[in-house]
């Protein structure tokens, strides 16, 4: 089988040699089997569980038990993309809180990590490409002003596309305080794209904004979480919490065996820890 070409970073080649009926020559078929990578969060009572090994994980691909490898996530840098709602509904105080929250997260990155910035109103604007220069991203954030409508769905798609980076773990933090009012892309199509992505999306919503449904679904299919805050003054601690939590996720991989190639593969991830809660993307789409 072949998962979608954009997904895996690890590949194992499997050569099948089949004896043909023609005696003069052998027919050779090559099937490339690629590994599937999963960002997994394991918590007990809301606290991340540490020091698990591959033997603690059980992954089923379309119901078939798989052999799990564990990747040492400490060695893999992060590629963090902030997608921040800067539409009309955000107050001046909200803009200030949002900037401080983003600054806090950027300051908490470690050498090797990269960060990029997207702001959105009706337009989606890439303020900064992913860069290890945090000061550049901070400076770009200062230039953004709140105006216009909300293209939350378009911005989420753009951020996920930007967060994909070979050799890095993609994290997207989407903040919105309102309902999507102006996106072109349909939510179901973006969710379909998200299902193919290794990027993990954390949504942050203020109060009970109308955008909750999409952000909740997006966070869910990517294995992230939607965090709701009462007001924007809680954004800084929330952003830091997301980064902290993401660093404590496990990066596990497996090479699919015994399952059909194309189509949607539902994944079930369990750990051998009592009362543990596991978050990971719900599946992946295999290629032809």
């Amino acid at each position: 089988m072949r998962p979608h070409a954009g997904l895996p970073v690890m590949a194992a080649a499997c050569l099948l040699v089949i004896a043909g009926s023609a005696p003069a020559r052998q027919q050779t078929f090559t099937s490339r089997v690629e590994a599937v990578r999963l960002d997994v969060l394991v918590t007990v009572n809301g606290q991340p569980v540490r020091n698990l090994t591959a033997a603690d994980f059980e992954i089923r691909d379309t119901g078939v038990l798989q052999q799990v490898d564990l990747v040492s996530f400490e060695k893999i840098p992060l590629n963090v993309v902030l997608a921040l709602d800067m539409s009309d509904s955000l107050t001046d105080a909200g803009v200030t809180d949002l900037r401080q929250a983003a600054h806090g997260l950027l300051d908490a990155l470690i050498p090797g990590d990269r960060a990029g910035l997207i702001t959105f109103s009706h337009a989606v604007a890439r303020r900064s490409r992913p860069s290890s220069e945090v000061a550049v991203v901070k400076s770009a954030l200062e230039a953004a002003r709140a105006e216009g409508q909300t293209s939350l769905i378009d911005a989420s798609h753009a951020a996920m596309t930007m967060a994909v980076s070979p050799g890095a773990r993609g994290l997207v933090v989407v903040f919105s305080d309102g309902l999507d009012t102006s996106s072109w892309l349909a939510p179901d199509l973006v969710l379909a794209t998200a299902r193919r992505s290794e990027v993990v999306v954390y949504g942050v919503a203020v109060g009970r904004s109308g955008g909750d449904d999409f952000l909740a679904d997006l966070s869910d299919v990517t294995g992230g979480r939607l965090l709701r805050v009462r007001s924007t003054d809680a954004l800084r601690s929330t952003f830091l919490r997301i980064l902290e939590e993401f660093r404590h996720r496990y990066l596990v991989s497996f090479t699919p065996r015994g399952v059909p190639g194309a189509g949607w593969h539902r994944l079930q991830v369990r750990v051998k820890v009592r009362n543990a809660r596991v978050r990971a993307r719900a599946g992946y789409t295999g290629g032809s």
Partner: protein
Amino acid sequence: MPLLALLFAWAAVLVTSAAMPQPVPLLLHRWMTAADAHAPGAADGQALEVGDWSKDQLLTILRQAGEPPTTDRAIARGAVLHLDIALLVRARESGDLFPAYPKAGPPPPSPSMLVLDGRNTGSGASSTHLEFARALLLKMTDPGLQAEFARRWYAASAAELALRRQFAELSVHLDHARRLLPDDPEVLVASGYLHEILAGPVAQAALRERPSILVGERRANLGEAQRYFQRALSKSPGLAEARLRLGRVLGLQGRHEHALVELRRALEDAEDRTQSYYAFLFLGRSAEALGRLDAARGDFERASVLFPLAQSPRLALSRLAIEGGDEREARRVLDGALDTPAVDGETSDPWWVYDRGPGRYADRARTRLHRALLEDTG
């Protein structure tokens, strides 16, 4: 004697006044003078003065407006004056002026939906001065003139309300427009547009938040929108805006093959580059839904050619690239789009102003109304 003299004197006054023409009541005279002097489209002194009048004063004028010496011309000028007051002077004021409309029955309940960037910001009681102006139009005596003027007045006022996203007011407004002009294509298109909006995520989220509001479910609104657009097209088959919106609504209903037919026709009838752009976008979406990804790509590329700075078709193309497994192409397509400065929607990406509906033509409608005031009633 003094008592008798007083009675005779009183009788003499009554006889004299009955024989002479009735003087114009002072308030009506002031109103007619203000309407006549008002510069259409301006928040001038007349608009400010009449804008301060009480509801009782307005009701008094309305009672007197249908009788001589009030003319259809004066009523038309008055309707424009009060439209300008509602939009320019008292834009934030609303209230129930009339318990019932003359000839038109009671006003329908107003859907509560005033939104800012997706947030419900208040309820939608009807504007006093718009109610007054609508009631005034019913006082016109020449049916032909009334229909012609009302057509332009409703087109201009509905466009302004759409532009300002005053959907609650627009709902009430169009209900009255349809009573007076049941077969007017522009009124029908505006009515379909309103239901298209009410079927959208903002209205539906408001409905979930407050189930009591009169918005209606998405499916019902799409059905209503479809019927209004089809009625408009039955009256005016070349109306590209109606066909375009019908095509989109059919797509939203999942009837993509039907949508493609309407959208191709809309493309042929398109009056401007913006309508062609919309048609290509919607064609692309329906083709994508049908799994015709090459066709969809072609449609989005054509939309992008029409508006090279527009983000929407490029977002669609990048998503299609991911669908096809080409992440690099997805990033390449997005690269240019995301660096585009967020300039004004009209010139950058018309999708951002699609939900303005007739509001996109507000300037044109206003000009037509003011011209009608000068030509038809002057």
